[in-house]
């Protein structure tokens, strides 16, 4: 299964605008991608069943009108929540980046799909403004299949509503204890006032990741703001954003291999 190219479904809607670079990142990591409009998916939910990885890209779905991700999430909740839950149950990794994260949280798929509704939110940045800059982040030990082994690195953020707010301290403690905090801002580099410096969370299965920073914007050496300095100093640092997608592809390949082996043995 080493060379298998997982079928990756990228879901876009009116105002999605990071779908092309997300597809590019997945392709670089070895996946096959198909980008599909939410309208088409509502007509044909079978796409979800065939997907081996699912990505919700960044952007301004429906203009961020009312609140970021709200309208996209409402449409999903009415039409596609069950197929998505089933996909997670089948072991399909799902990633929501920036607006995709906002969608997954407002849909209730993250961080706690059993809460029967929203258990956290992504609110206005504490300074009330859209911010684009690079931040230092760390992937702590967690259940997340996407952030495995990534350690400390830098990623760009670009959002106006990224302040992670849990519904309660108890829930936050539960998620923390369960290893669901997949990504944190460096404590002195929290750009938006997120509770506990949370930049990304995963569900209890570790398959569903949502994060505000944009790993798909760091898949080339020259994306990094310090690449000319590193070049001058003779340092080579591989683009850390790519690691997320490589991890997911590896996970799917390993799962497929594990599934295939007993079958082979039985023959």
């Amino acid at each position, binding site marked *: 299964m080493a060379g298998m190219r997982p079928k990756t479904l990228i879901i876009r809607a*009116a*105002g*999605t*605008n*990071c779908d*092309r*670079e997300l597809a*590019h990142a997945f392709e670089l990591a070895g996946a096959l991608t198909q980008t599909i*409009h939410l*309208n088409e998916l509502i007509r044909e939910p079978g796409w979800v069943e065939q997907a081996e990885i699912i990505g919700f890209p*960044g*952007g*301004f779905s*429906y*203009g*961020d*009108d*009312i*609140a970021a991700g*709200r*309208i996209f999430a*409402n*449409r999903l909740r*009415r039409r596609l*929540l069950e197929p998505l839950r089933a996909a997670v149950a089948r072991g399909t990794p799902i990633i929501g980046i920036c607006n995709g994260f906002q969608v997954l949280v*407002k849909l209730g798929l993250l961080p706690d799909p059993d*809460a*029967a*509704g*929203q*258990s*956290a*939110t992504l*609110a*206005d*940045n*504490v300074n*009330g*403004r*859209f*911010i*684009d*800059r*690079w931040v230092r982040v760390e992937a702590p030990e967690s259940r997340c299949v996407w952030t495995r082994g990534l350690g400390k690195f830098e990623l760009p953020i*670009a959002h106006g509503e990224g302040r992670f707010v*849990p*519904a*309660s301290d108890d829930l936050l403690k539960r998620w923390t204890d369960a290893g669901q905090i997949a990504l944190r801002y460096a404590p002195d580099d929290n750009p938006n*006032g997120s509770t506990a410096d949370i930049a990304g969370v995963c569900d209890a299965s570790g398959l569903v990741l949502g994060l505000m920073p*944009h790993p798909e*914007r760091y898949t*080339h050496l*020259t*994306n990094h*703001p310090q690449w*000319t*300095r590193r*070049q*001058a*100093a003779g340092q080579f640092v591989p683009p850390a954003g790519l690691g997320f997608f490589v991890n997911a592809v590896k996970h799917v390949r390993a799962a497929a291999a594990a599934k295939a082996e007993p079958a082979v043995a039985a023959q």
Partner: protein
Amino acid sequence: MTASPASSVSIDLSAAPVRVIRVEVRPRVGEPDAAASAALAEARVAAGPVGDVRLARVYLIEAPLDDAAAALLARELLADPINQEAAVGVSPLPAGGATLEVHYQAGVMDPVAQSTRHAIVEMFPGLRAEQVEVRTGFRYDFHDTAAGPEALKRFVERSLANPVIQDIHAQPFHPEKFAHGSDYAPVVRHVAMRELDDAGLVKMSREAHLFLSLEEMRAVRDYFRAGDREPTDAELETLAQTWSEHCVHKTLKSTVRYTEPAGKPTIPNVAGRAGHTINPDGSLTIENLLKSTIAAATFNLMHQDPNGLGTWCVSVFKDNAGIVRFDAQDGVCIKVETHNHPSAIEPYGGAATGIGGCIRDVMGTGLAAKPIANTDVFCVAYPDAPSGGKAGESAGNSGGSAWTTDTTAIPKGVIPPTRTLKQVVAGVRDYGNRIGIPTINGAVWFHPDYLANPLVFAGCVGLIPLDKCFGQAKNADRIIALGGRTGRDGIHGATFSSAELTDTHADEFAHAVQIGNAITQKGVLDVLLQARDIPASEGGPLFNAITDCGAGGFSSAVGEMGKDLGAHVTLETAPLKYSGLSYTEIWISEAQERMVLAVPPEKVERLKALCDAQDVEMCDLGQFGWLSSGPGGGEPVLALSYKGIEVGKMSMHFLHEGIPTPTREASWDGSSTVAPAPVRKTSVAPDAPIGEILAALLAHPNIASKHWIIRQYDHEVQGGSVVKPLVGPAQDGPSDASVLRPKLGSDRGIAIGSGLQTGLGEKTPGGDSYWMALAAIDEAVRNVVCAGADPTRIAILDNFCWPRCDDPRQLGSLVRAAEACYDGAMAYRTPFVSGKDSLSNQFTTEDGKLITIPPTLLITALGMVPDVTHSRTMDAKAAGNSLLIIGRTGTQVGGSHFATVTGDGSRDARIPHVDLAIGPKTAAAVADLIARGLVASAHDCSDGGMLTAAAEMAFAGRVGLDVDLDGLPAERELDDATACFAETPSRYLLEVAPAKLDAVVRLLRQAGLAFGQVGRFAAHQRLTVRCAKHGRLADVALDDLRAAWLGPLDW
């Protein structure tokens, strides 16, 4: 605490009467609310003590929904269950305070209302879209304040709302029902003009907002006299738009007679130039100014180098944007527009639709390009003085308070500059970010005379397959409109932008204001690229031609596309935002987010299917190919009908070629065209210590950090960012240009930079727009070269913003700038590929005072970067490296920031001149060093001079710097301040590692360029300056310099 799960809701629509449901949504108490906090801070300044401000978004929903449905909407759609609370109806008013509400006026584009309406319809099966209407507003609760409702209303009007598009209510607004448009019964209106004399024509032109000259009005009258009929209102409006300065650029395309008091023109090199004749009296006649200067340079360059620039330039001056070759498959196109008048009366909407319109230009180039980058440049007056008071004259050498506008003296009808700047930034931010195009380059220039005429330049770059660069409508193609619905917004935008502003314009032209909806345009873009990219074997592309609906609306788009074929438009088929629009309003509305396509009849259904799948609206407006005698023959005409009634029929030839082209008078007397603005002084004198002058320069708003703006723009979406607008280890150094990779699979890139040298124009004593224009070209080239562009593949664009050019002195200044564009483009071998002008930028105050803007020429440069891994950033890299300056420094400080900041009067007050032999040679040599990998960092030496640029490199890189002025090559011996701060053009600063210094020195000597080592980067955190004669001149902490630079615009 979690929200209740979603349930499928079905409601009994027959049970609920149509009514307006009101829902307020606000953050829970204790949640941060930055907008409310900002309003509180401003309210305290403007209206005295206020305990608190709370802010709620108000949704007014007209629909047949009952109370249970309203509660569900509030809970599930409108409020966030975690951190917001919703109230249906009017929540209690604050005790001991007041409530004010700001609501969009009916008919004003409100994207949130549109999205909410769609979401509501989807929530309630059985509810139809036309049964629901949503409007939104904001409720401000002012707690614990003694300020009266009138004072608060004035504050809200000034700081939180724009009365041109919003109503302010002194109590919560909850109408029982909305006013709806009434049905429109068509009556064909004819306008009696055949019998008018000159006075009558002039009056009609002004009163009907046609803004045509007397000669043009006569030509119109004579056309209809010859046809023995009166024009319909639609015909007259079509002519006014098609002939507006905005659409036809009649000044730049006209023949100009240019005179100088001493006889022969002092413009260099014009004798013998094609299209130029020196008359016996010494005056100069230029036929078609644009063609004989700017365009001539491009065509000459292409002709001289047929296999190089000749093939690199793919499409110039004929389409919505100019196209050059990017690689073997694709071209890049670029366009820069201005949106000045709309931004003066509604800065947010004006700037947003400015960038939106420029993006549509790129979408409407060839057979549609994919936008990949935006730029924005603003020219505004200095920020408001704190507390809305008098401008500060006494401020010290740091902080921005020396550079302010006295808001108590702002003329009626003018929005204060701080609000203007904040709103234009928000407009560009919200449009560019939403549509997913990185905004990667910009600048802000401050001058008091931009007060009433702020300039908003918006640029867009696109990627387009080389086989899709040209489109042509064909006979019988359907006229298809895509995107937004048509409403009353933006009526008369084209003619309005061609007029001079006065204190009453905000009232008179409220209808010209446009608000954008980026998501509608993104949907159109998605559909266009899909329709374009269907391979020919599968019947693609689905259209033969495309253009955007910009100024002039359908009138301009269809008129242009059907110029040679004729067109018939059925106006009743355009989808409307609301009923009641007349046929003329439909025809000339400049409602946003619309594109017009020429679609072969057999492909209409496939295009419709693409649109339907993505919620994009499309309509069939008629057909191309329409002749005066019907299908049988005759000449191409523009025929308009409404429900079968003919409401217009005009010759396409007259429409496009009938405009009179009088010879225009231009003069230039070598002095300022208007009284020079007084040079403003800080407390820093010209003989102050070098370190103090440096800090004051870094704090001048033109030079000070623009991070407050840049950080609000997504400059990395699409994933190809290479050199960002802010660089260095803490991302706070000012880039000269931005570089990106348009194709993620390739290391080939583009660099975008700009040049703006307004200080050298005629508002400066001794200023001359000829040298201003050359300096702008030189600066634009330097900027992209520093980032890694190949100087043999740089395309440039011109954007002229001038006061009214029916004043010969203003036109004289414009002529000199245009001639400089020719000389500059030829010398640097940088073809102009597109451009735009805005020539009515002046304002008459209520008491008759005229404010003209400084003549302003923005040059935008688009350079090819063969390998992005050779790009450079400006932040210093390492201690021990040398700092070299390339280029000689002159004595002139006229127009420099040093002169502005210190009010210097004792040095050489002449403005510097670009040397056209040395500038291009220097650019080539610097680019060569960069391409060879010999340069650690490169920075353009411009605003603020050498020491300012050197300081920026040092503090951006967090590396100390010891400057030695003895290494500075100069034309003659310079005093220390001139050496540090003169803004001599064509100079670069390069950081070079010790191991590479010999090679660099050898190559620069070979190139025959003046250069010298002016410093060494050091392992400390200070900037020191010395020279042999005077010893140590400065020793300043980098942190202090950086703080001076970061502070003024850290809003």
